[in-house]
């Protein structure tokens, strides 16, 4: 009876699915061709000659571009666009680019009064001519002085960002010393992390393995780095309990780092004998092939606990659903905000964004990490205060906080 019901439901779903698909796959009705609009003929006036044309080495770059600027044309200049001509080491001028946006508004005119030439020949001087294009005629500017691009060691535009980074770093370093001085630092409860021991214990009792995925991030991803430190803590526990820990990797460099981290954890726990390098292995760099491979491992090995910590994209739900289908306890964590809903829906515990970064501190309670966490909280407090002060000041017409933030960003 039950089987008949299931078959009936499957058939109903199939019929709905196929009919939906056919309906969606129908080609839309052709749109009748609209009457061609009459092209607006620009007035037949000679364009103004571009004035004040200058070519300068683009500041704060690696010496690979020159920026040409000229005055914004007046509204009745008759200019419909510009062509940029360049010569190399005093040779003939050649056309290298054009700015043909219709100049119907002041904003548009303002946007096209410069051209960044990113196709220069290194260690070579270039001169430029700007040719204004009118409806029927053109007008050329004077040739600019020859310019050679140079690389800059420092990006002066990033100084405000550098100062703000120094402030954040000072807060973190100060708190690290505070924590190292033996001061107790409180860390609030993170439910997902309290389940780590439960998950490892469950796998040990069931005699099954633990699967740990750091996702698709590279070695420089902040989430991957956070995931690596969590893996180090998980590996300490699996070393204690002698539970097999399997880590499929998407990036060969991440795999090497993970091997080092897990090996260190096993050494720290005095169990180098049970460390097996082959348990941390490379699958593939292709996103969905990786998902297919990890799914296959889940189904065949049936791990009792699955950790999905790091950067995930569209494969998040595929992995989490498969883990759910085999009845594994799943602890996920990511800072990819679009994947968090899927983890929340399909996993037992989920670390949301910043919780992933705090996780290693929570698990290890090392003074350095505790101090770093407190420093980050101070940074958040600073943002908190900036936001409230910014809102109040904006409401009374003072906008220096917004201007400062604009400069920094």
């Amino acid at each position, binding site marked *: 009876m039950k089987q008949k019901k299931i078959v009936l439901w499957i058939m109903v779903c199939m019929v709905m699915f196929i009919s939906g*698909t056919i309906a969606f*796959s129908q080609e839309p009705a052709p749109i009748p061709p609209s009457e061609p609009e009459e092209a607006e003929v620009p007035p037949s006036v000679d364009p103004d000659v571009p004035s004040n044309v200058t070519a300068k080495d683009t500041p704060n770059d690696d010496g690979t571009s020159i920026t040409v600027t000229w005055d914004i044309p007046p509204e009745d200049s008759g200019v419909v666009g510009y062509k940029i001509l360049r010569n190399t080491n005093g040779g003939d001028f050649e056309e290298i680019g054009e700015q043909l946006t219709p100049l119907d508004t002041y904003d548009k005119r303002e946007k096209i009064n410069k051209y960044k030439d990113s196709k220069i020949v290194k260690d070579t001087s270039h001169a430029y001519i700007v040719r204004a294009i009118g409806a029927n005629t053109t007008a050329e500017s004077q040739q600019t002085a020859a310019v050679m691009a140079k690389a800059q060691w420092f990006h002066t535009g990033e100084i405000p960002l550098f100062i703000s*980074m120094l402030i954040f770093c000072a807060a973190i370093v100060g708190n690290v010393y505070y924590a190292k001085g033996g001061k107790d630092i409180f860390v609030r409860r993170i439910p997902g992390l309290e389940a780590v021991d439960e998950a490892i214990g469950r796998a040990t009792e069931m005699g099954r393995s633990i699967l740990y995925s750091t996702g698709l991030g590279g070695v420089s991803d902040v989430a991957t780095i956070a995931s690596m430190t969590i893996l180090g803590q998980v590996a300490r526990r699996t070393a204690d309990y002698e539970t097999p820990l399997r880590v499929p990797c998407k990036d060969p460099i991440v795999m090497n780092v993970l091997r*080092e981290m897990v090996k260190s954890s096993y050494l720290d726990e005095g169990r180098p004998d049970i460390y097996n390098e082959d348990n941390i292995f490379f699958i593939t760099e292709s996103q969905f092939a990786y998902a297919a491979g990890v799914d296959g491992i889940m189904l065949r090995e049936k791990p009792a606990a699955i950790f999905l910590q790091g950067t995930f994209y569209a494969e998040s*739900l595929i992995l989490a659903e498969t883990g759910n289908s085999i009845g594994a306890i799943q602890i996920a964590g990511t800072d990819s*905000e679009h994947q968090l809903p899927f983890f929340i829906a399909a996993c037992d515990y989920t670390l949301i964004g910043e919780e992933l970064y705090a996780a290693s501190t929570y698990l290890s309670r090392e003074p350095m990490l505790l101090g770093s966490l407190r420093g980050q909280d101070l940074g958040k407090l600073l943002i908190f205060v900036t936001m409230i002060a910014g809102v109040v000041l904006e409401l009374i017409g003072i906008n220096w906080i917004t201007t400062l933030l604009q400069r920094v960003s």
Partner: protein
Amino acid sequence: MQVFGIWVAAFLTLCIYSFLYQDNPLYRFAEHLFVGISVGYGIVLSIHEGFIPLAWNPIWASLTGDSLSGLWKLIPIFFGLLFFARLSPRHTWLIRYPIAILIGFGAGIAIPNVLRANIFEQTRGTIEPFSVIHSQTTGTAVEVMPSGEFTVFIIGAVLMVIGVICTLTYFFFSVEHRGPISWLSKVGICFLMVGFGSAFGNTVMGRVTLLIQRVDFLLNTWIGSIF
């Protein structure tokens, strides 16, 4: 040849979909084929887009005397080669140098961008609407908003500030969540869940589109090629 390609694609699609029933030899075949091909393709891509233009060509140009600047590449190549130290148990420790460089370099590149995009831009975006509110109420705005639109704008700006402040409170880890902090963080969770709900719906719609595309291939391209 094209028909053959369609048949192969349809067969592999069905093999992968057979996973919905349970693990089976067909799925395993498609999975291993997929993984194997992607690894092979990745290696070829690394050689043609990484090794040849970034390492081989500059070094060869230096050896032939075309451009000596390629010799600088020997430094990163040397550190890259240290990854092979893993093959010798006595020299495995050498691998820590390229790893340290990679993580340090990666974090150095990532942190300023994270600060800029996730902190300063977001903070500015939350504050800026209040400048519009000020200009609208004091009559200094270039374009005056209709009163209904302005009311909605004010509600949106205030909700945004409340949402950001409450959500930020949830992510304070070194403070116990009691009293007002607890309340603020609970409101923050509500905002998070609303955000996740909308992201969930949005992404599911995208995935359904992908499914439709695949089924469209099976029904129209594949079955269509038979009849």
